[in-house]
C-alpha cells in the first residue's frame, strides 16, 4: 500500500512563519496515519521531470487528508515551490504514511517528553494534536511536556495552538520576547533539568530537529541519566 502514489490536490495553505507554510492536501485513498509518520511528496514538471522529498505530517486523524508544514530550505528544489508557489487546486503525488519508529499512538501509556528544534516541531506537533484530540482520559494517562527551541518568537510554528494543548517551555536561541527571564542562548543542561521530565522507566523522549541540535540534546539527556533506549531521535541536515 505504501508503494502506491496517490494523487493529491491542495485544498488549503496557511502561513506558519515568514519562511514556512502549512499545506492541506485532499488525498483519496490515503488513510491510517500515526502521529510522527511522514509522507513522500513527488512533483512532476510539464516535461516529465520529477523530484521527490519526505515531509513529516503536521497532523493526523482525518483520512484522505494530509497536513504538511514545510520550512523553506534556501537553496532547496522542492520546499521553495511548496512554500512560495503552490496554491489551492494544484496537484502533486503523495505516498505513505511511512515510518513506524518515531511515532506516538493514543493507546501508548506513560509520560512523553518532546524536545523540538526549529521546524523539527512538525512531527511532535502531530503528536500533541493527536493527544489533544483523543480526549482527557488519554491526556491523563500520557502526560506530555514540550521543550521547544526557536531562534526568535517569530520563528515558532503553531505557538498559540501548542500553548493551549501542552505544558510548553520556550527556549529562544537568538532573541527573546521583551522582558523574557531566560536570556537567548542554546539549550543547556540547566534548561533540561528545569523544563523536562526526570528520567524514569516509563518515560519516552522524542527529539526532532537539525542534526547538531539533536546531537546536543541527546548528549545532554544521556548525561542527565536518561536510558538511551528510551530516547528516540529524528534529524535533518548534515554534520561534518
Amino acid at each position: 500500500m505504501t508503494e502506491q502514489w496517490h494523487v493529491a490536490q491542495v485544498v488549503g495553505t496557511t502561513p506558519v512563519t515568514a519562511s514556512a507554510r502549512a499545506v492541506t492536501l485532499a488525498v483519496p485513498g490515503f488513510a491510517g496515519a500515526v502521529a510522527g509518520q511522514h509522507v513522500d511528496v513527488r512533483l512532476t514538471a510539464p516535461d516529465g521531470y520529477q523530484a521527490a522529498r519526505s515531509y513529516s505530517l503536521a497532523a493526523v486523524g482525518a483520512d484522505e487528508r494530509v497536513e504538511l508544514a514545510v520550512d523553506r530550505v534556501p537553496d532547496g528544489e522542492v520546499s521553495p515551490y511548496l512554500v512560495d508557489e503552490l496554491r489551492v487546486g494544484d496537484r502533486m503525488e503523495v505516498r505513505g504514511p511511512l515510518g513506524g519508529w518515531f511515532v506516538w499512538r493514543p493507546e501508548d501509556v506513560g509520560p512523553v517528553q518532546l524536545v523540538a528544534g526549529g521546524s523539527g516541531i512538525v512531527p511532535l506537533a502531530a503528536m500533541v494534536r493527536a493527544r489533544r484530540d483523543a480526549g482527557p482520559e488519554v491526556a491523563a494517562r500520557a502526560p506530555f511536556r514540550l521543550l521547544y527551541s526557536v531562534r526568535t518568537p517569530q520563528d515558532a510554528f503553531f505557538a498559540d495552538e501548542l500553548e493551549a494543548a501542552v505544558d510548553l517551555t520556550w527556549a529562544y536561541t537568538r532573541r527573546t520576547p521583551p522582558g523574557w527571564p531566560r536570556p537567548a542562548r542554546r539549550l543547556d543542561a540547566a534548561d533540561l533539568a528545569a523544563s523536562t521530565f526526570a528520567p524514569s522507566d516509563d518515560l519516552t523522549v522524542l527529539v526532532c530537529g537539525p542534526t547538531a541540535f539533536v546531537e546536543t540534546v541527546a548528549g545532554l539527556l544521556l548525561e542527565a541519566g536518561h536510558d538511551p533506549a528510551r530516547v528516540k531521535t529524528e534529524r535533518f541536515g548534515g554534520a561534518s
Partner: protein
Amino acid sequence: MAVVSRGFGGRREPTEKPLPPGQFLTEDFPVLSAGPTPNVDESRWEFSIHTETGEAHRWDWAALQAMDAEDVSTDIHCVTRWSKLGTGWRGVPLDAFFADVETEDDFVMAHSYGGYTTNLPLDDLLDGKAWLAYEFEGEPLAPVHGGPVRLLVPHLYFWKSAKWIRSLVTQADDVPGFWEQNGYHAYGDPWLEQRYS
C-alpha cells in the same frame, strides 16, 4: 501517468552520472539515526562474527588496524532520498573477516553499539562489496557518522551500512532488523527503489 504540478520547473542540475530513481544530489552529509549517538571508544570497541555452531570470531581495534585496508571511493544513497557521489572511505573488506568463518547460513544480522540492527544476505557482504570502515575523507570516522567503525555496504540503501558496528550474527532466514521491522524494505536496492516494505 503522473500528475503535473503547475508552476514546478525543478532544478535538474546536471549530475556527473545518473542517480538511482527518486534520489537527489547533496554535497552535505546528512545524519539519520533512530536514537542518541553512542560514544564507543576505540579501546573498548570490539567486533565479532557469530555462526550457527556457536563459534565466535573476535577482533579488537589493534587487530583491525593490523589488517590490510583499502581506500574506497563510492557513491552512497540514503532512503530519505539524498545521494552523495564519490565519498572516500578507508576500511577492511568483509572478505578478510569471513576468511576463516564457516557457515551454512545465507543471511546475516548486523548488530550495533546502541542496539541498532539490520539484516543482509551474506553474499552482499562478500566479494569486495562491503567493508568495515573507520576513516571518512582521510579523517577518523566521526561518532555521528558511525565511528569508530561502521559497516559500509554502498550498493544498498545506506541504512544497511550499520553505524557503530559491533557484531555480525549469521542466520538461516532473512529475519528483519530495526528499520526493516518499521516499514522499510528487507533488501533495499536503490536502483530498484526498494524503499518500503
